[in-house]
């Protein structure tokens, strides 16, 4: 080792004076984008004209015309610029863009509608009071949905606490243990994920209320939600764990670890982000469920801090009830309830994502 790389004389360019500017020659220049831009404008103008002078009136007619004109214009431009293959590529690109926009359209319009109708009922007060002393036609600044918010958090939190261990352990059984019953368990998990939510509610109603003579409680509601949540968590977690390469497991075992230690210290940490997604999907499945709650938590207009005794409300229940009441203010309250439910779910997802993505 007589010579080290560091001993070498410095290469030219170390001073940075002759290093050229980094460029991305594969990115189209504005000049190259011009035909595309002109094509897009042509497509818009042409479809407006077509809609104006033909019976293809209305939004649907405009979209249909715009779609066909875009395909024609884009493929013509690509054909002129390159060849038939590029034209075919353009057609598929346009179709995919339109389909993506088609998916976006209802989502955006739902969110827009919820904000438009839900915002008037929003005030700080609704997060600090319940409906126990407020009638359905009272002004929006009276009463609130604290009871429903707390009920929702209770019922979802309890369901999550029950479902996460059961769901994840089921997934571990299916992937890591892979015992004799794995096939049967997998079949039932898949069958369970297709259970209609009201059946889950009816099941708890039949077992808890009718057989055991229990009463409406928050906990009964969360058991119904857990029935819906467990298969979602288990199936997603199973798919995630299946993606972890066998090499990693073998590397752990080859270091003399037991299977339990390998799973706990190697497999699960490697799959962490995906397992968090599994839980999120599970929560998303149940957060807005209404039908099972109607049969299990009974509804309440006042606060109930005890999840194991007495009726309770939840945001979906609150929304359902207020729509049923039918007065103008009640319907406004229902929309506000939808808005709050949406924001709560969004905050929860964002938090979980941030926690899940933290540098390991």
């Amino acid at each position, binding site marked *: 080792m007589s*010579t080290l*790389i560091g001993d070498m004389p410095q290469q030219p360019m170390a001073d940075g004076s002759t290093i050229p500017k980094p460029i*991305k020659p594969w990115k189209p220049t504005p000049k190259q984008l011009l035909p595309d831009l002109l094509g897009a404008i042509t497509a818009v103008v042409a479809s407006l004209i077509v809609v104006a002078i033909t019976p293809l009136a209305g939004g649907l007619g405009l979209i249909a015309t715009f779609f066909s004109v875009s395909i024609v214009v884009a493929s013509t431009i690509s054909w002129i610029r390159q060849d038939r293959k590029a034209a075919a590529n353009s057609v598929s690109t346009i179709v995919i863009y339109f389909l993506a926009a088609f998916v976006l359209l209802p989502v955006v319009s739902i969110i827009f509608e919820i904000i438009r109708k839900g915002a008037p009922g929003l005030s700080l007060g609704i997060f600090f009071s319940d409906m126990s002393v407020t009638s359905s036609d009272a002004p929006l600044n009276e009463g609130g949905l604290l009871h429903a918010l707390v009920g929702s958090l209770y019922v979802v939190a309890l369901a999550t606490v029950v479902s996460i261990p059961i769901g994840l352990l089921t997934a571990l059984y299916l992937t890591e243990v892979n015992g004799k019953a794995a096939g049967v368990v997998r079949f039932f998990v898949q069958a369970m994920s297709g259970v209609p939510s009201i059946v889950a509610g009816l099941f708890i109603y039949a077992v808890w209320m009718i057989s055991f003579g229990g009463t409406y409680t928050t906990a009964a509601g969360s058991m119904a939600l857990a029935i819906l949540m467990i298969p979602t968590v288990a199936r997603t977690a199973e798919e995630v764990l299946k993606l972890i390469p066998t090499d990693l497991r073998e590397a752990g075992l080859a270091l003399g670890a037991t299977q339990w230690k390998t799973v706990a210290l190697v497999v699960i940490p490697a799959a962490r982000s995906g397992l968090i997604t599994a839980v999120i999907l599970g929560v998303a499945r149940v957060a807005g469920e209404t039908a099972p709650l109607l049969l299990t938590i009974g509804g309440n207009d006042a606060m109930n801090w005890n999840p194991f005794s007495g009726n309770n409300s939840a945001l979906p229940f609150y929304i359902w009830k207020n729509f049923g009441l039918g007065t103008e203010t009640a319907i406004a309250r229902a929309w506000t309830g939808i808005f709050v439910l949406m924001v709560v779910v969004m905050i929860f997802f964002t938090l979980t994502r941030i926690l899940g993505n933290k540098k390991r």
Partner: protein
Amino acid sequence: MSQIKVNSLASVASARSSETSSQGVGLEARSIHAWFGQKHVLSDISLDFYSGTVTALIGPSGCGKSTFIRILNRMHEFIPTAAMAGEVLLDGKDIYRSGVDVTKIRLGIGMVFQKPNPFPSMTIKENVLSGLKLAQIKINNSDELLEDCLVRAGLWSEVKDRLDQYGGTLSGGQQQRLCIARSLAVKPQVLLMDEPCSALDPGSTLRIEETIRELSETMTIVIVTHNMQQAARVSDYTGFFLSDGGPGQLIESAPTSQIFSNPKDKRTEDYVTGRFG
């Protein structure tokens, strides 16, 4: 010890060079720089690749060989943070010039990857002919082409009775030769190989090296390799890349026999004699 090694490599290399005759320049890299985000990974690489020859790129891990070879057929741009400077000339025309059809560039400059990657949903026959389908090329005598490609890739005798089996049923070395056959079917001028033998056993490596030798009679081949014996065995020219912690640089490029027997740069000598890297 290292002296013996350098001599033996040099003799292998000179035996190789004596039988080659270089023709025109097939592919030229001019002042290539590359960046990933702010990180400058390749600095001022200029290298000519002659038609009908094999050029080996050697150097320690992380010196930018793979980045460089990916720049040669415009695969670099698939990395979102990537940027570059310089020109790559194929038949005297820059493959990065504006308005060029990138699919035609990649059709002319094929690539074989480090890990054999036959398409899992296709049979051996379909794999070889997949390039025609993907690049939408129509030909009449596909069976002839199939046999021709497999023969040139040195795989025909092993698979001629099982052309309808899936590519995944072959061994690693056979899969890699299948991938070479697949690249040949679209008749590229240049074939880039990024450590094509690093996942293979010595027997398969030998077969692939024979294949490379045969192919080099009709095309320009660039091969990245960590195996110095391989560079000495298969290549006519060798480029030595090195990074001193900064961007990777081309320290020396010369006929392979010269790199292994009489390198100009001390660092090249140290590397080929195994003193570092």
